């Protein structure tokens, strides 16, 4: 069952970055093969304080600072995973995944297949991506689509503290290479989550309806989920009820939940911070029309930034990124 819908009075608010720490801590206690490596994950506790306390609790063998060598230490993690550890690997910014594509795509994703099933590669890699912080062209990218294009990987995108907690814990327990794409703009956001040491897991591969509605289905990922929810709220005041679907895992994609929602709304908007061409939105639209070309009663829409690098200037990044207002106005246009 989808546990993240359960709410409990004892739930306490937790910050997105602390959800990371807590997921790691609980899983490291649970399984001594879980180790954490990356740049500044150790004594310093991470650039966003996301690994604070883990070094002193688990020691230098299990929590280890790496030099700046994304390709090298990702490949190292793969080798460690093949031989019995379950490494968690931090890549500071999603943009730096460009430095370790080979170990992810040609090693981690293919080794089990190439080696006739002799090994598994239980690595959880997490990184902070997306925009909203005026971090400029090399520190704001959303690259989920690249990894969705590669068999042998799983890709998750937690859109809240609770999802971060539940998805990361499931990722660490998964026997595959799971890439967890976090949003920088959500780092300080908080949300009530189940108490510590409750077995709170969100299953990989299951979308969540974050809000129900009959008029338009908005599929949103990462930080765009909050924006979609905000838009939904204001639209509701205008008598338009939108359904917000958060895939949570973008590979493998839970298309069934999306199709089910569309069978009701028959209108589709996909919102993401990633570029449009060959993105998650294209994939969702393609699957929908392949399944049933009559399902949609009007043209689907991808709401994404224009096809340009992420600009630094706040005034430009504001125009560049989708937000609640733009989502609401797209919905209005679609409904008129």
């Amino acid at each position, binding site marked *: 069952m989808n546990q993240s819908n359960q709410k409990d009075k004892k739930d306490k608010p937790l910050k997105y970055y602390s959800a990371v720490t807590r997921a790691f801590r609980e899983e490291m206690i649970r399984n001594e093969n879980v180790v954490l490596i990356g*740049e*500044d994950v*150790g*004594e*310093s*506790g991470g*650039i966003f304080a996301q690994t604070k306390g883990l070094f002193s609790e688990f020691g230098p063998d299990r929590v280890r*600072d*790496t*030099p*700046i*060598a994304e*390709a*090298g230490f990702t490949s190292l993690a793969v080798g460690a995973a093949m031989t019995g550890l379950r490494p968690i690997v931090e890549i500071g910014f999603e*943009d*730096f995944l*460009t*430095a370790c594509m080979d170990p992810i795509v040609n090693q981690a994703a293919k080794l089990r297949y190439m080696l006739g099933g002799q090994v598994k590669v239980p690595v959880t890699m997490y990184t902070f991506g997306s925009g909203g*912080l*005026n*971090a*400029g*062209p*090399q*520190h704001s990218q959303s690259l989920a689509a690249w990894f969705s294009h590669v068999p042998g990987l799983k890709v998750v995108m937690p859109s809240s503290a609770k999802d971060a907690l539940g998805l990361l814990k499931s990722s660490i327990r998964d026997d595959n290479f799971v890439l967890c794409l976090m949003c920088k703009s959500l780092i300080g956001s908080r949300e009530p989550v189940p108490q510590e040491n409750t077995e709170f897991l969100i299953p990989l591969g299951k979308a969540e309806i974050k809000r129900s509605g009959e008029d338009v289905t908005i599929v949103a990922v990462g930080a765009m989920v909050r924006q979609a929810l905000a838009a939904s709220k204001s639209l509701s005041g205008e008598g338009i009820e939108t359904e917000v679907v958060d895939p949570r895992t973008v590979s493998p994609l839970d298309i069934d939940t999306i199709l089910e929602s569309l069978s009701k709304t028959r209108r589709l908007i996909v919102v993401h911070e990633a570029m449009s061409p060959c993105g998650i939105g294209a994939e969702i639209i393609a699957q929908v029309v392949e399944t049933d070309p009559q399902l949609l009663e009007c043209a689907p829409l991808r709401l994404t930034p*224009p*096809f*340009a*690098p992420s*600009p*630094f*200037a*706040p*005034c*430009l990044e504001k*125009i*560049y990124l989708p937000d609640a207002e733009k989502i609401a106005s797209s919905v209005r246009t679609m409904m008129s």
Partner: protein
Amino acid sequence: MVEISKTKALEIHCKLWEIRLFELKASELYKDGTLPGFIHLSVGQEACAVGACLALNRDDFITSTHRGHGHCLAKGADAKAMMAELAGKETGYSKGRGGSMHIADVSVGVLGANGIVGQSAPLACGAAYTAQVKKTGQIALAFFGEGASGAGPVHEAMNIAALWKLPVIFFCECNRYAELSPFDVHVSVPNVSARAKGYGFEGVTIDGSDVMEVYSSVLKAASKVRQGMGPILIEAKTHRWHGHYEGDPMNYLDRSERDPDNRIDPIQRFESDFAETLELSPDDLLSSKKKALALVDQAVEFALSSENPSSALMMEDVLS
């Protein structure tokens, strides 16, 4: 010590102050919310930038890092267009689209600060390759940190430069930290310069707080690499006063490292160790510092009074 004219000495002094004041101002403007995004300062490391760049010709190239304000200013970039870029204004070097990590002024050989650790080295090799093929006599200098020395592209660049005898200087600013972790998390030997032998070229370690030592080392290296003798690695030991980024709480520093009295100040050192020999009077020093201050004030004034980029700029220059 290498001999230099009084004009050059004043230029050095003024540049040291221009960088220091530019960055302290940026720090202030960042704290009060005027400058957005992430900013990495090189306060304390000015002697590296100034010593290295003033030993190069105007048409020589440099490539820089996320911590690049000093390098850019020292090579001749304009403080006004830089500060405007930091503020995300249309008059900035990148028209507000790049920010602090992407300052470039190709007209003075600055091929760009760069947000990706390690890329400065192979990019500089590219500029050096152009110079070699076109026989222009130019050279390139790549700034990078000791943290970057662990990155694959830096190794690949050094190996290629050695094989191709490229006219390039690898200039490592060893400021004792990479992000939040100390030197020995990143480098397994006392000196990064030890790497050079493995490629068969010269590697030296120098005092990066001594602008004159930096200057003369780069001058000597530049003349060798310009003659086609292949690359040289210079490692300058220096000190980063501020955090990795502005706002960094620097919890990783111990008490003595936090004490401002324990800071090594390259500007003070220049003034106390060299002013006399170089015949700079207290008045000279004061007036060159004032000149620097004026440049920085103008830069701030220019940046703050500039316009935000128009939305049309968002889609410009994506392709040529």
